[in-house]
């Protein structure tokens, strides 16, 4: 065979293995969104059949259609509640990020502070927030502040621990290099430790996003009977008392959607910040 034969243009030949692999990739791309949708459709159908075949009354188990009806019919009320819960969640997340990352930097800069406070951060984390919340609402007058404290207690720890790990995972040669070039403590923190910690911090942030929603919902359930609570968790509780099960499902669906939205938004943020340089954000060609 001559060289010119090999270089023939216009005849792209792909071997069987590569063709199979390409087909597999195309199928997976569709299956990624199609399969979960099929599972959902199947679940809703089974749910509907259970209600119809067993002739269940709607105050025991409402049909999917009735749940949907509540979601659209009560939308105005539910949307207002969602905004409230969403606001508490976001504020808690912001405080968790500032507090968690701030504590991590403080711990990193001063070992004595870390040794003094770290055990208490762990204790705060491992004590169930449901157990702490009633106490908080006894001493904190503002419901909003109380709810924020609850949500913060659950959400700050993943940010603290992952950022701490990140700040300590600096390449030791880079550390030496900074020392040789006479970097100050702040230059080391700003130009070396914080960028090194970024992927770890973002991992913690993704967990904290979900946890701050959990914290907000739990706080609402505890504080709800106090009067101001009109968030989604309060709606679920209230609808339960009234045997309005359809609205419970509708509110639950919104809480789940909020959780998914937070996770997706934080994943996108993480991708945007890391896509240029971090291994986790790099698409492999093969």
């Amino acid at each position, binding site marked *: 065979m001559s060289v010119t034969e090999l270089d023939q243009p216009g005849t792209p030949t792909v071997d069987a293995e590569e063709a199979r692999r390409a087909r597999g990739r195309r199928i997976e791309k569709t299956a990624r969104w199609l399969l979960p949708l099929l599972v959902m459709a199947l679940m809703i159908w089974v749910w509907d059949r259970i209600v119809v075949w067993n002739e269940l009354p709607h105050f025991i188990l409402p049909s999917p259609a009735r749940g949907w009806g509540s979601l659209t019919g009560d939308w105005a009320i539910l949307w207002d509640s969602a905004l409230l819960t969403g606001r508490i969640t976001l504020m808690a997340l912001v405080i968790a990020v500032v507090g968690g990352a701030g504590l991590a930097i403080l711990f990193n800069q001063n070992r004595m502070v870390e040794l003094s406070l770290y055990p208490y951060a762990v204790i705060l984390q491992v004590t169930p927030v449901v157990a702490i919340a009633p106490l908080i609402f006894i001493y904190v007058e503002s419901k909003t502040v109380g709810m924020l404290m609850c949500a913060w207690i659950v959400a700050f720890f993943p940010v603290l621990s992952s950022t701490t790990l990140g700040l300590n995972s600096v390449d030791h*040669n880079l550390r030496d*290099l900074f020392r040789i*070039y006479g*970097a100050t403590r702040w230059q080391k923190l700003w*130009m070396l430790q914080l960028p090194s910690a*970024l992927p770890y911090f973002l991992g913690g942030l993704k967990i904290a996003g979900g946890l701050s929603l959990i914290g907000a919902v739990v706080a609402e359930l505890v504080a709800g009977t106090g009067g101001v609570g009109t968030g989604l968790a309060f709606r679920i509780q209230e609808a339960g008392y009234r045997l309005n099960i359809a609205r419970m499902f509708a509110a639950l669906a919104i809480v789940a959607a909020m959780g998914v939205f937070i996770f997706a938004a934080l994943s996108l943020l993480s991708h945007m910040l890391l896509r*240029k340089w*971090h291994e986790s954000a790099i698409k492999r060609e093969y």
Partner: protein
Amino acid sequence: MVKVAPFSERAELMRIDGVDKVFPGDVQALRAMSLTVREGDFISLLGPSGCGKSTALRLIAGLSEPTSGRIDWQTQRARGDLGVVFQEPTLMPWATVAQNVFLPFRLEGKSYDAIKDDILAALKLVGLDKFQNAYPRELSGGMKMRVSIARAMVTQPKLILMDEPFAALDEITRFKLNNDLLEMQARIGCTVIFVTHSVFESVFLSDRIVVMAARPGRVIEELHVDAPYPRSEEFRTSAEYAAHCRAASRALEQAMEAAA
């Protein structure tokens, strides 16, 4: 073009005098090392692993203090007079090639625009001026190492320390970088202390080879490779090169026996 002075006329740059380094647990990493480094020297520290050559380099870099003995610069030393290249490229993955080379100046508080030309010149020196906006992950191992060398050279240092910088690279890339390193050294006229365990590399690159032995780490012998610079690919195949390699191998064997 060649800024390096002939051997006999070189001024003293650094004096290492009776340096010991003992690690906790009475591990003697280095015993009684003495070495006078002159401006323009290309010194290889050659020896088996555990002979204290990396320890010596850390002491010279000031990253660690000798247990006893002294290491003194014989000239006025300013910031940026010392450059270091590690075994790994040691680049900041979140920064572009140009930003990585800019690092020594950035830590001095200089602005990028003020020394942009220096950075481009350093990148040109290592042949990567077209890659200034690339991120390290986009580069091959050899290219990353070139960026690392550009960063060490950008401040026009008096002394560059290299700790087995090419050990992880394939032979073709290593030979190319060996050639280019000599050319770069000649161009900026710096002194190099180069840690290696390769006899061939040390003979090709250096004019002084310090052979070291292990347990405890110590200097066994100093060899001179008096072949003139610039050295090219022909030198690699010359009888002279082979003779020097034989001598260095023999010295290294003695070092191994001394340790056993």
